[in-house]
């Protein structure tokens, strides 16, 4: 699965998520990616989220919308992302990851899987990583 969250100069937020699903899936199986609130959510008043991981668990937990609601309740992007992803894994025993931007441009990145590839641009630098607690950087 791949995804992107952006905020433009007017302060508008958009989120996109695309996937081939899960290897060896049943014909006709649909996961979380096309389901708003599962794989994708954007609200200019709060932030935007794209998720990846075990689709059936993500859609049961409405992972993207759960993160939005935690942020709406006052949590910052990183704490909300961490709390929701870990909550899903604790409840359903499957893994996921999510990337989040708050309406102010604060970043949230968390995954309960072994790895998740991510990258963002801030202050003319590209930050990226794939392992837990890893943040690499290079000039834009």
């Amino acid at each position, binding site marked *: *699965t*791949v*995804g*992107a*969250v*952006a*905020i*433009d*100069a*007017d302060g*508008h*937020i*958009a*989120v*996109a*998520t*695309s*996937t*081939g*699903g*899960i*290897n*060896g*899936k*049943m*014909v006709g*199986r*649909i*996961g979380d990616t*096309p*389901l*708003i609130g599962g*794989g994708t*959510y*954007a609200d*200019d008043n709060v932030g*935007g989220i*794209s998720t*990846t*991981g075990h689709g059936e668990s993500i859609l049961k937990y409405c992972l993207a919308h759960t993160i939005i609601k935690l942020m709406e309740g006052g949590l910052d992007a990183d704490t909300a992302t961490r709390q929701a992803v870990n909550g899903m894994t604790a409840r359903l025993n*499957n*893994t996921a*990851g999510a*990337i989040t931007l708050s309406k102010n*441009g604060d*970043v949230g*990145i968390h995954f309960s*899987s*072994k*790895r*998740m*590839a*991510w*990258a*963002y*641009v801030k202050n003319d630098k*590209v930050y*990226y990583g*794939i392992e837990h607690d890893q943040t690499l950087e290079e000039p*834009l």
Partner: protein
Amino acid sequence: MKPIIIVHGGAGDISESRIQGKFDGVKVAVRAGYEKLMNGGSALDSVEAAVVSMELDENFNAGYGSVLNLNGEVEMEASIMWGQDLISGAVTLIKEFQHPISIARKVLTDTPHSFLGGNGAKLFALEKGFQQVPPESLISESAKEALNDFLNKGDDQRTEIGRKDEGGVG
């Protein structure tokens, strides 16, 4: 507001051999999205450009390089959402198009609906001028190997793509 974009290239038991490809791909994608923002594009333009970039890259499970279903076919899905007024577009069971995310965006902009699937999504894409590609052109060697592994080794080997590494449960 200072524009910003973040991308992901999938979570799971990503094998060591795929890490560099993932790194390269997410950096290309985030730059593609950022360039849109810097040239006056909207957040929608930006996230579509970033995802289109990864749909072209076999290192990712989307577009070319997608994993296969039990019939050995690519069946893709995508969604896109605009936070100003909470409108969205989504498609599923897409088999013959390179960029599901661009079809999803057309659902958002050109229909009163939110989600199209199967043959209806295909007909809509054709109506909007998206070009069909041979389904086999979306299938990578890695995806074929991953399906073979899955069929030969069973459910405990299931992962986004490639063999499951020890220690991972994605």
